[in-house]
């Protein structure tokens, strides 16, 4: 069970959280203008990397706030959390 640091509440057990999948999937501003494939890409397609990933999490049994987390999908190492709307932090294996 992961130990996740909520930016508002501090470290808490994973069971208090709800994972919202890949972060930074922006809703298209003009959906009717999109062809089917582009819209389907937004609705259905998600990255599934083996390695570092930016994810959305919600502290469901705590402050109920959404935030973003950088987590390694193989080792479950957590590099850090950041707020919705904050600048994208580099992944640990990326050059800043």
């Amino acid at each position: 069970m992961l130990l996740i640091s909520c930016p508002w509440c501090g470290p808490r057990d994973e069971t208090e959280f709800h994972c919202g999948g890949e972060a930074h999937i922006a809703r298209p501003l003009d959906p009717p203008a999109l062809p089917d494939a582009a819209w389907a890409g937004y609705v259905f397609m998600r990255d599934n990397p083996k390695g570092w990933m930016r994810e959305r999490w919600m502290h469901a049994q705590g402050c109920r706030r959404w935030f973003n987390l950088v987590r390694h999908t193989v080792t479950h190492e957590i590099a850090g959390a950041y707020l919705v709307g904050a600048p994208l932090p580099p992944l640990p294996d990326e050059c800043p």
Partner: protein
Amino acid sequence: MSGYRLPAGGRVDRDRPLAFTFDGRRFTGFQGDTLASALIASGERLVARSFKYHRPRGVYSAGAEEPNALVQLGAGARSEPNLRATQIELHDGLVAAAVNAWPGLRFDLGAANQLVAPLLAAGFYYKTFLGPRGWWRRFYEPAIRRMAGMGRAPTLPDPDLYDHMHIHADVLVVGGGPAGLAAARAAASGGARVVLAEDGPLLGAGLVDDDATVDGVPGIAWADEVAADLAGRDTVTVLRRTTVAGLYDHGYAVAVERRTDHLPPGAAPGHARQRLWHIRARRTVLAAGAHERPLVFPGNDRPGVMLAGAVRTYLRRYGVACGRRAVVFTGDDAAYATAAALADAGVAVAAVVDPRRDAPDAAALAARGIAVLPGHAVIAADGKGGVESVLVAALDGSGDGQARRIGCDLLAVSGGWSPVVHLYSQLRGRLAYDDRLACFRPAGSVAGVTVAGAADGRFDLAACLAAGHEAGLAAAVATGFPAVAAAPRTSAQPPALPPAMLWDRPPAGRGKAFVDLQNDVTTDDVALAAREGFTAIEHLKRYTTTGMGTDQGKTANVNAIGVLSGVLGRSPGETGTTTFRPPYTPVAYGALAGRFVGELFDPERVTPIHPRHVEAEAVFENVGQWKRPRFFPHPGEDLEGAVLRECRAVREGVGAMDASTLGKIEVRGPDAAAFLDRIYINPMAGLAVGACRYGVMCREDGMVFDDGVVLRLAPDRFLVTTTTGGAARVLDWFEEWLQTEWPGLRVFCTSVTEQWATVAVAGPLARAVVGALAPEMELGAADFPFMTFRDGIVAGMAARVARISFSGELAFELNVESTAGLALWDAVLAAGRRHGIVPYGTEAMHVLRAEKGYFIVGHETDGTVTPIDLGLERMVAKRKDFLGKRSLGRSDTVRTDRKQLVALLPEDPEELLPEGAQLVDDPKAPAPVPMVGHVTSSYRSAALGRSFALALVRDGRQRIGGRVFAPAGAHVVAARIADPVLFDPGGSRRDG
């Protein structure tokens, strides 16, 4: 009679005899015994029958790795299957039985399985019992299960208490042997919070098996000193009788503490039987030790063949000799101490057989009159009930080339040691094969975890103490504490020679040579599997079932890998290991459940009116966590009768329903209207204050997600109602969009479900009932039109009254603050009495809405149904965007032949279509018959005077008037497709 109690010695209390029963016979042991040690001391060799061949088996080990001596412990509700006799602490009155003997241990019909053994070879269930069709399920499987089954699960509720505990630690030390003690001592010395978990009842108990001193005193005395030091520290939690069952990410461990199992039943009233510990540690030291390995040769499973280390443990810790005349067969130095200990205890040692050419210590043993046979191997263990003799031969064929027979009733074997790498492997720690030590050792690293001592392949006492100490100090320093303790010093000597295995040399003797004792897997099975292509270790495991018993192959796995590698002529390192998964040893469900059983299993939500429903003897159903009255049966009435009566009352008179469970969310803020416009498929921003509107919401994939009525309370304030089960989901949905996608919208959402109590009054006489309660309120259709609401006084209480109808009848929804709910219900029933008001439940509500063609989320929808499929095209807003709108234009969602909501009228009006039934066009078509839809709801209708159903049918709206067929058990039901609105299609009744 074979084993016996020594006249002195051991850590048992000979002044406290304990009576117990095994397999219906009475025995005595001593305080401090395990069930296994007491049985051996009583001369019992046969304690179990094997899983597949029902061969006689004896105690094999002295710990968690025990493959043979599984017992059913206790009786009645406290009966527990498949426990290891080697770990069961004896108490007075203990009752146990062998698990795998039917009808009895000594007279075992299943032993005849040995005669059909050729049919039961590896993968037998894939090959032998194939035809005819259906026979496997009806005959073969029940018969095999009966013969090959393990213990039986109790059928009565568990009478014991179980607790969950949560603890944070700087350092968790797993294992209270020498390495674990040294680690805990070192870590605790600087003040770190330490949790030490030890499987057994005593810390460092294994040191009694050893003659070496530690810090100048006997090892066991040193262990006692460390235990006393740890017990005196507030920062240290020592958990005895505690097994760490699983190790997970970020320093999380789950451990089971057995608190009362060593006591007679009822001896500790009010105490939790077991505690499940949730441990979160910053650093973990794994000092779980090692398991001795069997050697593989024909007859290696006979009672009297035991692990050499266990033989020494029984001598030293329990004062029990496991036989009267012993042969030691070892490829490892450690068993020489067993030979010496046996001789010390007065047991005749006929020979020490060592496949290595350079046997250590031969001179020392020879001086005591013990023959050491280097370069030899036991090639068979023979005897009827148990070992009576062994055949020993020189490995290089020297001597006269003849095997010699040595009489003995005890064969102590050692094939080296396997580090307990289970927890490390659970955490995805890599294992690497060590050729010199012939074992898999931890390799690489796992964040926050250090493996120390025998668990790391350091099998001698000096190395264990040193490694444990270093690991403990390092963990303390890493968590910010000083290194204080000095390293323990010992007189112990490291082993002289590496162990030898015989995996590449198939045993020369005849008979079964077992790799996995618990699952009865032999070398022949492994060879057969290899011949048939199952050469990957994961395939071998599944095909032969080796390592898949309740012991998870603790004594079997490395031998299976070794034998397979020998057959294939490759190194065990090339073969590799299977993955270890939690739990390390089986965990009782009671411990996992803890206190979350019975009424604490799941919160039960009830409405303020609930006590009245209980008094009315309503039949309840669970809707999410809510208890809702399903129907209110009159005496002698069944579901069908009650529901027909309740429905008739609403259609012809008046009914009342507790609708308090509907989800209610207040959405407030300057942008509330704009927000709801984005959420619902229909327009909400234009809703007038004082008006209500039914709305549907979709996910971004265009599939219906929830529905309900929206009330506009003020320009910036809405009350959203949701389905009973969907309230939390909808609130989460709102919050997610507001926080992540539209943080600029000024909107707040508050759940008010439990702040309101709601009573729906429905039926042609509803206005009369509400009028009597609210004389001030204008209730006429012109003054109070459908889909509007008013605040006012009802039965003397502040109330919000809405004209909303889910039945198609004239209806008023009365809402009061929840504390007033009970009074409102009473007032409604009192005012309605002269109109014959009838309380109705969810079942009648379902029938009434289905007659009107109203769908229910989760009944008619399943996450693959769009609003268009439900016939709601006209609701879909054209001029605004909303969540899911673009998906309604995808090529798949605009198909005209999607499954659409229709009604079905069975051609026989008495026939009820089964809910969930698949629909076909031609019931006589050859299989596979194309499915054209399925039944979503099915009822008998009082108003229609017949049965009917709602269904999703491919291209259903175009097929109204056509026929479909549903298989219903043995026969086929024909039904006519109809428009979903079967009752009052013009909607004239809702205004009364």
